[in-house]
């Protein structure tokens, strides 16, 4: 049972991490709580479905086009919806909720409420420590790792990353130093949503594609980033792994309570908030900045 928990927790945690990185990045840098983050992930899954299943374009091209389209969509949404109210955090929150609902209803009207499936990029099962793991899930693990590494390189090894961190550290000073803070924020939104789109494209073959698929991950992502420390990238990854393992332990130790795995994960969040309100890595992130 221990091997089951180790492998299942790792694979599921990596899926959550893929979503949580982008959410955390956009908050850490631009102070935008983007509730529509997982809605972009849902739109990416639908784009992949349309291009791959209906359009027959093949996995690499469909995946790339889906990520690019959703990223462009996010930039347009940022300019039209988020930027005008960016100074008011509550307004941003409400605007992104509205965006998410618009995406949901639009997709519902176009595709209906039927559950759709996307073929796996790679079929078959690999064995890790004697546990059968579908290769598509291992691919998610690899993609999550690559995205995490890529984000770290972008933030800490490029001039753009320096601008992003400077803007996150002090928006006014960054502005006075001649940085175009709005452009930095817009680029961050684009990168963050691109990560969500990659997550959508990666998990669509293992999940069910439907207009409401953004709701459950949103709750998980919120708990993940709160546990890890809102705004901390590596905190999000660790938070995601904690959630992944807590869920796996719940299911294996309490089979009849499998439906409680979400509630247990949320309880973890509450406990972390009570003990350490800034999250596990909240302070560390402040220092990083």
């Amino acid at each position, binding site marked *: 049972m221990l091997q089951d928990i180790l492998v299942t927790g790792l694979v599921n945690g990596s899926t959550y991490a893929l979503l949580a990185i982008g959410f955390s990045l956009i908050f850490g840098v631009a102070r935008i709580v983007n509730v529509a983050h997982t809605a972009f992930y849902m739109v990416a899954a639908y784009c992949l479905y349309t291009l791959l299943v209906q359009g027959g374009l093949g996995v690499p091209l469909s995946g790339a086009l889906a990520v690019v389209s959703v990223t462009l969509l996010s930039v347009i949404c940022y300019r039209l919806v988020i930027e005008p109210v960016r100074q008011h955090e509550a307004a941003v929150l409400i605007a992104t909720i509205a965006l998410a609902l618009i995406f949901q209803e639009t997709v519902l009207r176009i595709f209906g409420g039927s559950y759709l499936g996307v073929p796996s990029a790679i079929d078959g099962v690999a064995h890790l420590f004697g546990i059968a793991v579908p290769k598509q899930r291992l691919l998610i693990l690899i993609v999550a790792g690559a995205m995490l590494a890529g984000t770290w390189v972008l933030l800490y090894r490029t001039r753009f990353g320096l601008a992003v961190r400077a803007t996150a550290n002090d928006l006014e000073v960054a502005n006075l130093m001649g940085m175009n803070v709005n452009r930095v924020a817009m680029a961050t939104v684009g990168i963050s949503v691109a990560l969500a789109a990659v997550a959508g494209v990666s998990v669509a073959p293992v999940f*069910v594609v439907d207009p409401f698929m953004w709701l459950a991950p949103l709750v998980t992502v919120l708990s993940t980033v709160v546990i890890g420390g809102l705004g901390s990238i590596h905190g999000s990854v660790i938070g995601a792994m904690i959630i992944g393992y807590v869920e796996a332990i719940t299911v294996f130790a309490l089979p009849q309570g499998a*439906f409680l795995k979400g509630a247990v994960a949320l309880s973890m969040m509450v406990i972390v908030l009570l003990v350490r309100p800034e999250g596990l890595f909240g302070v560390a992130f402040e220092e990083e900045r």
Partner: protein
Amino acid sequence: MARHFLIAAAGMLAAAPAAFAQGTIKIAVVGPMAFVQGENHWAGAEMARDEINKAGGISVGGKKRNIELVRVDSNEIQSVPDATNAMERAITREKADFVIGGFRSEAVLAMQEVAMDNKKIFLGCGAADAKLGANVEKNYERYKYWFRVSPLNSPDLGRTLFAVLGSIAGQVRADMKKETPKVAILAEKVIWTEAIVKAAHDNLPKMKMEVVGLWQPSPTATDVTAELAAIDRAGADMVFTALSGPVGIVVARQMAERKMHAVAFGINVEAQKDGFWEATAGKGNYVATLDTYGEVEMTPLMIPFVRAFKERFHKSPTYNAATYDAINLLKTVIEKAGTTDANKLVPVLEQTQSVGTGGQLEFTKSHDPVWGIGKTTGIAVQWQNGRKVPFWPPQVKGMQKFGFPGQT
């Protein structure tokens, strides 16, 4: 003069819809219209309406009246309050004479209250929770207007399930030489599965099957790898499912991806739909479920209905399309009673036996369909290479063989 004529004409035009409405019988079809369940509610109702109206309508005390359908989107999959508002709207604003439909038990229980408050006959075509019928027995005067046309209530669904499971277990014993097959129960955590889970725990050991555990994911779970890994580890030969949500697709798909040797049978509402094969990306092979319709002779009406439905809507009907039977049942009882008065129709409905498309319709004291071979049991189907193959009850003409993973 011209002015008077215009006023009179305007008055006549204004009164015309009301006059027309008086000539029709208004039936509200309540369901989640953006989803397959609601689509089937509406499609079945449309077929019945068109057939009846084409034949001259329903004879009420010698006068022919056409059926007018009102499409009411309950949005019940997402919101129970939306469902009660929809029911309220159907009765008070649309002034429906009868209400049919409903899907999600939690929502139908709430809608039942609204219909009963208004003393409207509500023919259920989607929810299985036994409490809906138990209400009738507990407080007959209030709940007598509720009748369930489809599906069977959850305990009776359980009876069919165990009958089918017994026959599959027989095949496991013969093919795999296992005297006591191991069964994992995988039931989503919602109210309609409670009676089935309890019955499974009670009955399976009596049927010489070993229950290796109960797993209860959420109906909207997108991942059941942990559950399936645990089921695999428990050595289950069969996975007994009670799933109505999208988790049914996830279970099928992930069982195939893990190449599990266990075969899944039970209730998997998603597996009843034509879109299941595509939704599982072709990985739903050998998944079996209870169903209502197939091209088999459960009743003389089933094959003609299924074929006509497919021809018109280019898909197979699901059990929610029993709105077709509900409307035909209403026609029968209205013509028998010669009235649309709900209080006069209830005793007639209670005594009526009619041939439906899914079974012989006859009601118990709780206004549920009478269960039994030759009455209403439903059928069992299995996905085999992209086709839904009916395999139970075996004595019915058109049934085929149940298959196991690994067999060709």
